[in-house]
């Protein structure tokens, strides 16, 4: 029976005191915690079973944004954690010198490599600065034995690899720094920097009444089709067309083969085209029930798509976000 006792006489830096519910958690999952502790190899870092249990419990209690992990799924959830990384994180938070040696040896090159990619042309010094900025936060502040000692590692619960989590923290910092700097720019500079719609502008050439009539309908149909997409499909489109990730990068992020991403994009494009054509070919009803614009003929529908080949500005990024606000219908 594991008795929660996180403060040992020889422990220079005990972990956080038990949180509410930890005792019940230990009582209910004693053997599971012991097995996971062994599986994680936590002993080699000097992390006790009680300390590891507290780390497991905090992660489980945090749960997802939607809901905490149901108790019946708890075992599967805990077993899916990156246990060795979690044990190392526990040891790092305790200030274990051996753990920090391991961390420096194994993760420093990863951090430097990730930082070099993140800062790009800003240079090696900036990359090191970004990577090194994590160290103090990882080590934490507060006196030894201070139960309020906080470290960045407090927010790692083993749901991902430690290396990926470190890269995510770096990515967050970098993006937030860029976004903060961008918000400080004068409005006119921001407007000037924002790439406008590709092409010569939004105005339709004079003397083409069909274009003036059809383009707004095409825009409306496209917006409706995008709003009907599943969130996963909208994200895929954004990553590929807005963020301009390659197929390989999107595939890596999604955990599938590159060919799968290619097929998914093809499917989405086909469904969008069909939805747009269907929408243009139907009578549009006004909100008050009055009959709206007449259905377009097949020839007119093709004419719509023909106009799209010209320099026509359609803010699909806004359309995607508008669709999110209006809610997906699928």
């Amino acid at each position, binding site marked *: 029976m594991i008795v929660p006792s996180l403060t040992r006489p020889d422990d*220079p*830096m005990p972990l956080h005191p038990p949180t509410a519910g930890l005792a019940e958690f230990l009582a209910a999952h004693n053997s599971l915690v012991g097995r996971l502790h062994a599986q994680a190899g936590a002993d080699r870092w000097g992390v006790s079973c009680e300390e590891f249990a507290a780390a497991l419990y905090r992660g489980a209690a945090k749960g*997802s944004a*939607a809901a905490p992990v149901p108790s019946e799924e708890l075992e599967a959830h805990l077993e899916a954690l990156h246990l060795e990384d979690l044990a190392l994180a526990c040891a790092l938070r305790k*200030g274990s*010198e051996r753990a920090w040696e391991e*961390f*420096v040896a*194994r993760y420093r090159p*990863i951090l*430097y490599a990730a*930082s070099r*990619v*993140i800062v790009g042309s800003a*240079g090696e010094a900036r990359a*090191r600065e970004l990577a*090194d900025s994590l160290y*103090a*936060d990882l*080590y934490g*502040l*507060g*006196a*030894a*034995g201070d139960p*309020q000692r*906080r470290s960045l590692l407090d*927010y790692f619960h083993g749901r991902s*690899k430690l*290396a*990926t989590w470190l890269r*995510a*923290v770096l*990515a*967050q910092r970098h993006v*937030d*720094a*860029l976004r903060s700097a961008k918000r400080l720019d004068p409005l006119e500079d921001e407007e000037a920097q*924002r790439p406008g719609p590709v092409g010569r502008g939004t105005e339709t050439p004079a003397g083409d009444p069909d274009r003036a009539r059809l383009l707004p309908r095409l825009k409306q149909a496209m917006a409706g089709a995008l709003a009907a997409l599943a*969130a*996963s499909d*909208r*994200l895929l489109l*954004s*990553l590929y*067309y807005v*963020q301009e990730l390659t197929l390989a*990068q999107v595939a*890596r992020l999604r955990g599938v083969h590159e060919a799968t991403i290619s097929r998914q*994009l093809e499917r989405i494009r086909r469904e969008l085209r069909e939805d747009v054509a269907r929408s243009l070919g139907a009578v549009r009803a006004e909100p008050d029930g009055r009959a709206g614009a007449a259905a377009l003929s097949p020839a007119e529908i093709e004419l719509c798509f023909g106009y799209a*080949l010209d320099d026509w*500005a359609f*803010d*699909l*990024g806004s359309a*995607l*976000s508008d669709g*999110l*606000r209006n809610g*997906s219908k699928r």
Partner: protein
Amino acid sequence: MSDAKRSDSERRDPTLARLLAEALHAPGASGGAAGDSACPDAELLAAYADQGLGAEETAHWESHFAGCARCQQILVVLTASGEEPLTDAELEQFGRLAATASIPAERRSAREEKKIVTPFPPRTTWRWLAPAAGIAAAAALWFALRPSPPRGTAVITAEKTTAEPSAAQNESQIAQANAPPPPVTRQGEEQAPPPAAGNSRAVPAPRGAEKKEEQAATQAQGAPSAPPAALETNRAAPPTQLQGNPPAEASSALKAPAAKANGAAAATTGTVTEAAPVGVAGGVGRGVGPGTPAAPPNGERSVQAFAARNQIAGLAKIAPPIVFASPDRSALWRVGVAGRIERSADQGQTWQQQASGVTADLLAGAAPSNKIAWVAGRAGVILRTTDGEHWQRVASPERPVNGRIGGRLDSAAVAADWTGVEASDALHATVISAGRRLVTEDGGQTWKQH
């Protein structure tokens, strides 16, 4: 979007592809209803990237990501940051090291016991195989060649740097290309020890107490340093608050000044437990006197191990800790990665953390007295203490200003890594980088090429 990105279906239906490409490319347009307040924390982002979320969670967060430009940008950066391959030169060097390194027989069993874990995800593509293999090989070599002396004893002696390893010529070439520069005497000869002023570069500590009476300051060895305890007090960018996680006190704690970190760090120091040498004092002290080279305790093999270790450390950018002492050996300092500085008043038995105020790797030190010491490191970092306790940063002669160094437009505009330092007192010191020597006579206010 370039043609290279277009798939067959896009080429067959350019209309829709063009529509999507143009209309979706609107930075900041997809602000969505999610907003920053609903963004997931780093761990959830990482778990998503690792495909570690369940189906329901994945759907929930993808719904957010679809409308959140911030999260999309983070995911892009996160994805891209995992793609850094080793350069061709690094791969070649790792390969040569793996091919030419010999593992001493008595260490083979210890190596076999060690579990080498690569930090790369299990689902790898060909782009990961080479760096994963290279880093695993380097890690194996580092663990294998890392000396495992008896507890509390040092590892390397000064003379190792004087003898070329008897390994393959490739190894010595790599050593020349990558190892830190060897100690330089006043006469400029590339051999230990440095002049009598507590000057030193990376100093290997001698083996055993019996070596206390012999030894110049040479490159130190030991376990990699623990992380720094002090925040860089002059850090420009404020710490980024963790998204959605930290309580208010944690956020403010992360921004606390270095003083708190010092207290925390000091509490973690204590008895030297690793290979950090007890015998360092003797060896370094020896180097303080009139330079008299001493015989290497383990001869050629130690030289090989030391050279190989530095090669790997250099390639893996792992800086071994540096130890140097005052002339009377009443004060020792140990410096290393991420700005860590420690001082010992009992010849290395115990160490006390000191605040450096920097996070750069510290590569060399010199102590003209038990109160005065100079430390130099990467990115132009030069530190000095005049009371043995508190460190001040000294203006580097190589700090770039508006892309210029020393008046010359420098395309890299990156401050030099100082790999050596010599000092005779609080005012007179020399910093060394890549064969260049810059001298100050006024405590670092001005520098001139030597």
